[in-house]
């Protein structure tokens, strides 16, 4: 061993080790920093500001006139009849959309999992609605429900579901079905894609083993497929539920919350309050309530997942 080499490495030893370690620890943060900085600046800063509006009196009419009013908005929500109508509608809108999107999406994923002629082309076409811009979907469906230019009301009559062809979007009893159907049309793909991906990740040996063990098709589905999918299902359902509850575009374009508030959900209510009445303070307060409800829901679902889902 040459003496020079030894002295150099000994004197360098301390410094080199620390720089090496710092570099190694910092590396992942370096890669994450652009996204974190962007998210903090563009999403979280405005979010905090937005939440603070909930505690201020804020009308865009008179921008100078901003004052802190504490929980006044929240007290007002408590006695706001429209809020509770919107809350109820939000529930039905979200529940109906998620349930139908999920069950139809699962059916589609199971069909796609099996091979058939032209599967590739079929898969490309069947997922198309997802690529359609939301406002455009809303417009198309509004047209389809219109008895003058759309075929749906006439079909409903021939099926005996309606007495005469009229626009159900204008009927307070049925109006919410319109946006829900449009939403299902638009959202099946999302469930089908994620569920198809998880289905494909179940090893074939599992099915083979079950078949050899004498399981029927239904048993294979309920004892193997479903438990395997369960963790993915819970996450997907959670994300979609939250997303749909916040999703105002379809309803806003199709009915504007109309037919006597029968399609007014919380997010459209927030939108109208903010951009029609320009009452940003109250709109923010309603948003905060919605946010809290959604966080509660998500926590509850994740807790349930920990408890019931053991396969992972």
């Amino acid at each position: 061993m040459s003496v020079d080499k030894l002295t150099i490495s000994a004197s360098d030893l301390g410094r080199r080790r620390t720089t090496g370690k710092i570099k190694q620890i910092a590396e992942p943060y370096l890669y994450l920093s652009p996204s974190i900085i962007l998210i903090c600046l563009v999403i979280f800063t405005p979010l905090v500001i937005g939440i603070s509006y909930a505690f201020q009196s804020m009308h865009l009419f008179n921008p100078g006139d901003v004052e802190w009013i504490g929980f006044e908005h929240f007290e007002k929500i408590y006695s706001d009849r429209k809020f509770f109508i919107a809350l109820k509608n939000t529930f039905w809108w979200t529940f109906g959309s998620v349930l139908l999107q999920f069950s139809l999406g699962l059916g589609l994923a199971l069909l796609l999992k099996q091979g058939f002629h032209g599967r590739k082309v079929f898969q490309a076409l069947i997922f198309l609605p997802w690529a359609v811009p939301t406002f455009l979907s809303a417009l198309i469906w509004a047209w389809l429900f219109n008895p003058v230019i759309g075929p749906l009301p006439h079909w409903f009559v021939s099926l005996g579901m309606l007495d005469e062809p009229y626009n159900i979007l204008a009927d307070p009893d049925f109006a919410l079905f319109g946006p829900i159907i449009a939403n299902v049309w638009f959202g099946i793909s999302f469930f089908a894609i994620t569920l198809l991906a998880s289905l494909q990740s179940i090893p074939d040996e599992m099915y083979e083993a079950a078949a050899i063990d004498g399981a029927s098709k239904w048993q294979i589905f309920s004892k193997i497929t479903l438990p395997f999918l369960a963790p993915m299902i819970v996450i997907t359902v959670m994300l979609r539920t939250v997303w749909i509850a916040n999703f105002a575009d379809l309803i806003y374009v199709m009915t504007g919350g109309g037919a006597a508030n029968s399609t007014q959900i919380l997010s459209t209510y927030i939108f109208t309050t903010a951009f029609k009445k320009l009452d940003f303070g109250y709109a923010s307060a309603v948003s905060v309530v919605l946010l809290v409800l959604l966080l509660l829901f998500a926590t509850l679902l994740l807790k349930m997942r920990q408890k019931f889902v053991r396969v992972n």
Partner: protein
Amino acid sequence: MSVISKPNLALTIGKYLALACYLAFALFPLYWLFKISVTPEKLIYTDGIALWPSEYTFDNFKSVILLTDFLVYFKNSIIVSFGTAAITTIIAAAAGYAFSRFNFRGKKVIIGIMLITQMFPLLIIIAPIYKIIAGLGLLNTLTSLIVVYTAFNVPFATFLMQSFFDGIPKDLEEAAMIDGCSRFQAVRKVVFPLTLPGLAATLGFVFTAAWSELLFAIMLINSNDTMTFPVGLLTFVSKFSVDWGQMMAAGVFALIPSCLFFIFIQRYLVQGLTSGAVKG
């Protein structure tokens, strides 16, 4: 599925029937859009519920291109969507790589933060964002849209990229590093070529999302020169007495890029989500 079962005729018919129903449900509305766009204006109401108009014309497409600002909107949307998709994919690839390859303090917190961005009502931040963008003097610029869209698309794109990286064995990078590559070289020469489908899927996904965004675009843009397609299309409703034929023709045009993109990428999207799950 490799479980062999006897072909059951009723079951097979049922299967194809179900497939046909799905296909009809998915495509009929798009067909209707196309039908209206080729219906001459005078027949829009009289042939309103006919499955195919008694006469058809491509005049609506012509007049959309020649008589409206359609091309401007189209160009703006292309710039915004491509810009957003490119920047988002780069940022998300870096973040997804960090999630896939490193264990570090605060990883769970950061994942949690990214999940939360997918959860709250967007409306709550639209007003503050408007104020900030206005304060920066960036209203009516495409840049502001690109920045905002990028921020909102980064979280999901990151998870997507992570699952693609998870599908590439770590051994490959290590082998490359032993073969003399720096980490950066290893990523560029080995990981990058293998993750091209993933990058394409993410690119296409974000492109589609940016292409159809309406809410921020309405808020942040109101000059005709910088309007994106969705906003421009909505002005068809308000500006003129609604010309449905033209509007639907414009809608057909609007569909083309995102649908093409989507048909091309959906295979990789499924594949990406799968490979991540397999390695899990």
